[in-house]
């Protein structure tokens, strides 16, 4: 098989050039998370200059805001002080022990949107858009936007095109971290109305070691589309462990006693507008579900 008149580069020239080319610079698409207050600097887009300002410069000193904040914190502190007199978590103990369903987020009105952050790949230079607004008649929330999977031209990123919505970390008084405790439940129940796109639900628990920072337990949310609401029940035993978007070899079920946040991600490489309406998100205890974990826990890739 010969092709005439093909210009050829010499073999040694090729070897030299392969070192120059950045074929081997592979980067995983960075984690789509809103900037967390506890991270040192957040994500820095490649090509953006580093900020040299000292971290205390970022704090804004404003008396009115400070006073309002103080009032809010002390109010929360008072509530926290008197809550244990009612029972654990502020609920009577019989309710805490026996309850079978708990509604976590119910989207009724603009105040319910305060607990959520949205983010898309615009942070890394992509072209997607995402917006969150209250649905018709304050009865749901609508997450909509456009997905565009053109990767940003910064030489590093290879894949792009994602949009996410994530719940904010619950905070106690004085901005202390509070965790969701779902240890008495075993199923996640959502009422959504999508447009047929497959979403991914990510649960981020609180971890101890730094290398566990981007650990996420994920599962798929397939929407049917159409004008009818869809009840989705996903047992927590189905969530698999992923780190920075890569599924891990050593799997274990998600520990439900300290959950930081839950999020929805769209990254199905289908460019175009999308929308997802959520009515409520709750957890429930399904006595019929006895599965411990859906994936094998033994070591499947023994060491070399």
């Amino acid at each position: 098989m010969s092709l005439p008149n093909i210009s050829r580069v010499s073999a040694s020239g090729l070897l030299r050039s392969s070192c120059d080319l950045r074929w081997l610079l592979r980067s995983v698409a960075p984690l789509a998370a809103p900037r967390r207050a506890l991270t040192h600097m957040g994500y820095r887009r490649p090509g953006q200059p580093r900020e040299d300002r000292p971290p205390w410069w970022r704090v804004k000193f404003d008396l009115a805001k400070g006073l309002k904040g103080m009032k809010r914190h002390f109010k929360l502190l008072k509530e926290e002080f008197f809550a244990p007199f009612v029972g654990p978590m502020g609920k009577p103990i019989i309710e805490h022990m026996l309850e079978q369903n708990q509604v976590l987020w119910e989207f009724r009105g603009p105040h319910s949107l305060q607990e959520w952050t949205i983010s898309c790949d615009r942070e890394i230079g992509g072209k997607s858009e995402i917006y969150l607004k209250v649905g018709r008649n304050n009865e749901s929330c609508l997450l909509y936007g456009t997905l565009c999977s053109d990767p940003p031209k910064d030489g590093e990123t290879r894949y792009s095109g994602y949009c996410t919505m994530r719940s904010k970390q619950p905070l106690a008084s004085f901005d202390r971290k509070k965790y969701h405790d779902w240890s008495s439940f075993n199923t996640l129940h959502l009422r959504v109305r999508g447009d047929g796109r497959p979403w991914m639900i990510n649960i981020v628990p609180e971890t101890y070691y730094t290398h566990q920072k981007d650990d996420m337990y994920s599962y798929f949310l397939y929407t049917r589309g159409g004008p009818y609401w869809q009840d989705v029940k996903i047992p927590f035993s189905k969530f698999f462990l992923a780190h920075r978007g890569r599924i891990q070899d050593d799997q274990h079920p998600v520990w439900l006693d300290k959950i930081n946040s839950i999020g929805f991600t769209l990254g199905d490489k289908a460019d175009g507008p999308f929308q997802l309406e959520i009515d409520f998100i709750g957890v429930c205890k399904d006595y019929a579900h006895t599965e411990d974990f859906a994936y094998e826990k033994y070591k499947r890739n023994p060491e070399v």
Partner: protein
Amino acid sequence: MKCSRCLLQLVRSGRTVVQRGSLLLSPSSGQLIVQHNQQQQVLRQFRCSPVSAKSQPELVRFVNDDGTKKTKSLVTQEDLFEQVAKESKTKATFNQVIDVFTKTDIRRRGHVEFIYAALKKMPEFGVERDLTVYNKLLDVFPKEVFVPRNFIQRMFNHYPRQQECGVQVLEQMESYGIMPNIETKVLLVQIFGEKSHPIRKYQRIMYWFPKFKHVNPFPVPQPLPEDPVDLAILSLNRIANDLDAKTTVYQLPFTDITESGEEISFPHIVGIQSPNQMELLAKHNPNRPVFVEGPFPLWLKKTCVYYYILRADPTPPEEKEEEVYDPERCFYYPLQLDLDLDRDLGDEENFDVDDLDEGPVFAMCMTSQGDQATLNQWISGLQQNNPILGRIPTLFRLDAGTRELEGVADTEAGHSHQPPPQSQREDGLPAEDSEAAVEEEEPRRSRGMKQ
């Protein structure tokens, strides 16, 4: 580098060899005797059978496109593909390029770069979902060279660039959702040995892909039907959420030639209605209007189709009547049970949320042209099975662009010329993009009363 562009071809044996000098063949011994030129290029019989040439080798000189023979510009492997791309981009030409590369150099110099270039060019040639092409690409790697032979080599990430390249090939396969087969595994084992990174990646793919293959409770058939009517029937059945629903094709697409010689194409109209919806429509109060709303998007893998719905506002609480179950309707089991279940807190099975009442949906349809004339045709088609439609005023709320589904008939200011009786208005909704578009399209929107 005088003859840097020389390419010697052994025509008979079909094996091409690149060298910077000239190559002599002695027919008697059947072995290649190589002249050592300035670059000390020595060609050995490298894991292949001895070449028996029957004729003098031909010296073929390739030149650059612009005729200069001594340019020192960097020519990347992608140029190979681009040269071929000028003619036609098919699987055959892609395979051809790979063949040219494999047969050019026995040592496959620059194969890593070539494979990366090939991976990048695959979508252009349309072969990114073809497993045979990936296997052929993996075949470009020389076999057995990169297999570690002792424990030190195994420890120290033997041939990291090539392993990374192999992993990237598998990664592209994974991102397109292609399951590798046994040939891939055999190739990978031959190239990299067991316990190498590409084999590990292959094992991971083979573990997780089957687990997630059937995880979609609403699977989309692959490939999607080409015919728009079939696609409409498929998607309507999907969103109907009712197995008893019946689809009706009110009109097949056809083109009509008018008297003036113009061709007018008529779109297809496919509708769906389930018996429950028919019942609801029959019970609807004729004084209240029904709305034809749309188009709403529905995504099936990568195609977006649009559907329209016929719905009404929820009945206000004063008009709601209790449905009395006729006990004689069913003798096998009672339709209504009044049990005093002694349920305490631990048996509460429903969530403590207010039930949304968004009004019933009576029917859905899909059509390629969503103008009022077409939808009128749909309504008249529906009327044959639901005679009450003839007495109910129908309002059309057709908007281009993404719209939220449903909701009580709260209209933004200026939405409808004739406010439906007792609809609630919400003034001053936040001006977002979609609503700004709604305001702009208001004069263009088709409004009509159908009696």
